[in-house]
């Protein structure tokens, strides 16, 4: 593919300095994301998926590595220099209860980015754009002057989506946008996000811990484990042929809503996620891996392409 990727990460790292040592939240992420694609990022709590989303948008500074947006290196851009890029990249947050300013009305919240970026000279145009956005995300007009606390989770998340869309971005990081919602509402928001993607030609990084959601919405999936890339492949292939032992364990751990699964003893992975502070050399998954070899405990596996577009970091995969 000769097309420039919309987003390219090269050996991106984010370490947090912690009293106990260096916390490797995001450790050596290299990937390309092309226009119109959705990359699902999955992993358990503490695997660095949210940190990755924020580092990509430069909401937190990276420790090492580079971020290219449309071929341009934005890693060291200053706040002011980032402004034109901010219009093109947005984020939808996980918790629609705490990510909206309780003192602002719905229209003020959606309008804010338009004001900051001085998109419209006239107030009238801005108000029209707010109405247009509310319409786009399925929020009724009558909510213009309500406050977030008056609305339920689903509607609040629609405000979050409308705010993210206000500046016509090309790229949106969705950080667990549906995990705080009930299933029936979750499905409404997922459908909305997929429709918007087609309609507006958006590119998503979709961060979630829910594998069935990620399969539903993504073209490619990246599995993270303790900040490291474990496996990356097109969505279907990852589910049909998972290679990394962690991916396999994740897939078997999902309870399937089907009566024929009752009482079937799925293989349950032992142990828990170890600490990302000053990780030991070798594979991060070694402590829980059922196939662990001597090599795994000493040498970090290389993230390599084992078949076209299917990458995995594991010593035991041939």
């Amino acid at each position: 593919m000769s097309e420039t990727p919309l987003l390219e990460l090269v050996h991106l790292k984010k370490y947090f300095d912690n009293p106990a040592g260096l916390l490797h939240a995001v450790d050596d992420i290299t990937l390309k994301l092309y226009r119109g694609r959705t990359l699902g990022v999955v992993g358990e709590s503490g695997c660095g998926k949210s940190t990755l989303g924020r580092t990509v948008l430069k909401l937190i500074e990276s420790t090492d590595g580079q971020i290219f947006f449309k071929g341009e290196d934005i890693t060291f851009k200053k706040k002011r220099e980032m402004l034109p890029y901010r219009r093109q990249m947005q984020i939808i947050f996980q918790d629609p209860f705490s990510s909206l300013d309780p003192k602002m009305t719905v229209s003020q919240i959606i309008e804010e980015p338009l004001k900051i970026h001085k998109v419209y000279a006239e107030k009238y145009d801005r108000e029209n754009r707010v109405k247009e956005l509310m319409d786009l995300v399925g929020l009724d007009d009558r909510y213009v002057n309500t406050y977030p606390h008056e609305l339920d989770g689903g509607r609040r998340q629609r405000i979050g989506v409308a705010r993210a869309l206000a500046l016509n971005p090309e790229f949106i990081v969705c950080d667990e946008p549906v995990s705080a919602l009930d299933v029936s509402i979750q499905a409404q928001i997922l459908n909305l996000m997929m429709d918007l993607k087609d309609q507006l030609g958006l590119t998503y990084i979709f961060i979630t811990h829910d594998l069935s959601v990620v399969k539903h919405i993504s073209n490619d999936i990246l599995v993270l484990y303790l900040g490291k890339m474990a496996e990356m492949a097109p969505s279907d292939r990852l589910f049909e042929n998972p290679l990394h032992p962690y991916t396999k364990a994740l897939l078997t751990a999902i309870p399937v809503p089907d009566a024929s699964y009752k009482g079937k003893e799925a293989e349950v992975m032992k142990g828990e996620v170890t600490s990302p502070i000053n990780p030991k050399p070798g594979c991060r998954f070694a402590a829980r891996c059922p196939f662990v070899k001597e090599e795994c405990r000493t040498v970090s596996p290389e993230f390599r392409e084992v078949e076209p577009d299917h990458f995995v970091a594991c010593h035991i995969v041939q």
Partner: protein
Amino acid sequence: MSETLLELKDLSVRYTTDGIISRAVNHVNLKLNKGEVLGLVGETGAGKTTTALSLLSLLPKYTSEVEGEILFQGKDLLKLDEKEIRKIRGRHISMIFQDPMTSLNPVFRIGEQIADVIRIHNEGIHPQEVSDRVDSILSMVGIPTSRKREFPHQFSGGMKQRVMIAIAIACNPDLLIADEPTTALDVTIQAQVIKMMRNLQRELHSSVILITHDLGIVANFCDKVAIMYAGEIIEYGTLEEIFDKSRPHHPYTKGLFGSIPNINEKTDRLHPIFGLTPHPSELPSGCKFHPRCPQCMEVCKEGNVPVYYEGDYKCQCWLLAGKEAAV
């Protein structure tokens, strides 16, 4: 036929706050046999937790009103006074709460918290026996006994949930209520906890009411399923009956299944339920689901909805009415 352990008869719970009446649970009829695992499924505000709390008389005293009967081993729990209830609570019926992070006492060692339950329900028990029982319970839930002198903050989420389960099963209860026991946990840890609970249930032969919104967990663990909507049980049956797609179902049940992306099937679009769950203070007339129902008919809008029975299976919907004797 197996023995009935618990029977709810026409149970209703109302909350009154600032003069506003919320009808959280409405005329629930439910039976649970010994050794059975019942999944109570529904969304936020469906009345699942309120139903569970009413079994333990843990509802706020001055703002809630309970009507109906809760027959536990033949005794009506609603007629007991606080002293009598305390003998049942924790001993015969116990509960695992949703959030293990906040349900443990942060200033007591976990071994002590487990021992507490044992001492309260076994007056005059020898300290050595308490300590032995704590050890055996800890090993049952997979916590090394060496950790019993640690405090809750030293445990991870999954381990804390095991402590909660240990407290709940400390007195070998007849009925265990688990309120979303794995919602706060990661999938791999969730799988560990579910597996452990299933093994414990088999070992102890207790009955379990599992409150959840996750149909996947229900399929893995439950014998019977009750679907709740707006304080009513709208469909009830065996796991196989509820999950059998070839059978007719309540439109809400269908909606719930349509809302979850199935990992084994490729679907382009989900089929969510239109609209929102009604607030329990403003329940619609007729069938509570009618404003959101894609198959809503004129009859659904007013009056009582007939219940369709087939053995133990029941479904409260006009669509199934007339197929058999309606009530």
